[in-house]
């Protein structure tokens, strides 16, 4: 009898492609929502990304009742409470989050408050606290990387206590994720590169870590293939609509993969580095990915070797002897990083970031060991192991 067991869950309707935004009014009406609120940040508004969303709704006679555009990069409990207040005051009945990870997480948290009641979001922190479906909630991602549009997690900072509150419930998942290439067309090169490498890392870790399963594998390999094929061409030609859509879809697919099979040491190190050195998440992912794969190599030789097909295509795959494929996959990722470094100076080592001091490395190692992601890394990680990986990633 097989010892294998897994669960896979993704009830999010994905609405993707050309003129996807124009489907929002229809989808809202289908859920009997008439008074949507937009939750977003100043950057999204300044980039003019709200205009097509608003126009799409107005043309269908659906009025956006109110827009909150002041979500900070690290959303807080106060912000969530304020937005919930506006939602209630304006008698809204649904939420559209437009933005990256922070706007999406804020939208999820606001939805908890306006659906469950009260002003204290901390009360709902933890796993499985929410027991009922929430208000209609749509997500329009404006970066192609986090995959937050398909994850059942939100993280909100409690400023007073100085802690990050996690919220997990499948009810946090939006009713629909709208992937429209117009939303990522103007992303600057270094953000395009870093966020795409975040998606790549989600897929690679989902495919090589302990909770991998056949369904998430399918999403992961497809995501790796899309990023490998499209990232450099988008870097060279930022207005490439098809390429942008490929990256946006890859991000969502990688999100579906990792939210069902988790991530590992790259994320544990990346979370710690982000917290201590204030480096962007995607940058940390790109930086640590090959070093962690080298560390895990002997435990993940087979799946990592299989990924070569998605990374380099059938010719390279079949020309590489099976025993060399895992190493070839790592080389392919290194090559991609070199190309990105050439195009936008995306750092490949801690030294290249210019933001990490040697003595911060110990702190990073210790903090990474406390990160939940380390639980799913295929190889057990000790403090010495984490330090050794950081040493290799230094220069």
């Amino acid at each position: 009898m097989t010892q294998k067991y897994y669960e896979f869950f993704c009830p999010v309707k994905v609405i993707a492609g050309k003129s996807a935004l124009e489907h929002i009014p229809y989808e809202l009406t289908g859920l009997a929502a008439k008074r949507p609120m937009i939750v977003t940040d100043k950057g999204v508004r300044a980039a003019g990304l709200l205009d097509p969303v608003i126009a799409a709704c107005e043309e269908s006679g659906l009025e956006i009742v109110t827009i909150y555009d002041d979500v900070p990069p690290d959303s807080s409990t106060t912000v969530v409470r304020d937005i919930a207040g506006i939602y209630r005051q304006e008698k809204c009945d649904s939420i559209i989050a437009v933005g990256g990870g922070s706007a999406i997480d804020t939208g999820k948290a606001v939805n908890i408050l306006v659906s469950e009641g009260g002003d204290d979001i901390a009360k709902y922190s933890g796993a499985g606290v929410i027991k009922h479906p929430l208000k209609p909630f749509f997500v329009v991602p404006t970066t192609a990387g986090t995959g937050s549009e398909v994850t059942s997690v939100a993280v909100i900072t409690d400023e007073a206590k100085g802690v990050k509150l996690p919220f997990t419930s499948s009810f946090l998942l939006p009713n629909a994720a709208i992937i429209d290439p117009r939303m990522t067309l103007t992303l600057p090169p270094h953000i395009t590169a870093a966020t795409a490498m975040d998606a790549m890392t989600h897929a690679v870790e989902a495919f090589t870590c302990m909770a991998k399963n056949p369904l998430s594998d399918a999403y992961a390999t497809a995501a790796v293939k899309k990023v490998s094929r499209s990232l450099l061409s988008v870097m060279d030609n930022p207005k490439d609509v098809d390429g942008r859509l490929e990256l946006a879809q890859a991000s969502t697919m990688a999100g579906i993969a990792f939210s069902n099979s988790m991530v590992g040491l790259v994320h544990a190190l990346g979370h710690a580095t982000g917290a201590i050195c204030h480096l962007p998440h995607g940058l940390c992912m790109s930086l640590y990915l090959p070093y962690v794969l080298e560390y895990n190599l002997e435990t993940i030789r087979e799946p990592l070797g299989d990924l070569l097909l998605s990374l380099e295509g059938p010719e390279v795959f079949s020309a590489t002897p099976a025993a060399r494929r895992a190493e070839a996959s790592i080389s392919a990722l290194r090559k991609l990083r070199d190309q990105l470094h050439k195009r936008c100076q995306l750092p490949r080592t801690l030294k290249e970031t210019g933001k990490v001091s040697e003595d911060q490395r110990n702190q990073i190692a210790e903090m990474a060991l406390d990160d939940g992601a380390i639980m799913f890394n295929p190889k057990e990680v000790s403090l010495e192991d984490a330090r050794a990986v950081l040493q290799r990633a230094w220069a």
Partner: protein
Amino acid sequence: MLAKRIQPMVSQARRLYVELMFQVMGRALQAVSEVDDAVKKETQALPAGFLFEMMVMPNGPRLIVEHTGLGRLHYHGASAPRPVDLSIQFKHIAHAFLVLSFQEKTAVAFANDRMLVDGDISYAVRMTRVLNRLESFILPKLIAERAVKEYPSNLHLPHKLISAVRIYLKVATNFVETVRA
């Protein structure tokens, strides 16, 4: 027909086994936190008075230990003096049996959604490492390799034997003490 009659016996045996293993583990956790530096290093980071629980949903067997300070763990049996800080919950007694009979590694059980964490995930990560260390101490190497992700390389045989003897001794005395009390 036979299956119908055997099933209750199987599930009762499973329940008894899980209860017994929880008792052994609770005592072993207390013992190992007194003798093993690697475990102490992990547990020292927990706040004093921190209550850790492992239980089977919805109201099955449970084990509760408290960090009393300086890395020391104290076994409370199956009832907590106050609400626990961290709870690892098996979804079903069958899943607890898989893990506690060392057929499924703790980390794999997490990965397979066999159990849930209620509480701070960083403490859960720490306690998983403590449980791994514990399992590799109290079990013969062959079984321990199955139970933990990686058998610690710094656990050489003499050291292990000495420590294991001490842990078994401590577990035994603790058992006797409980019986007497």
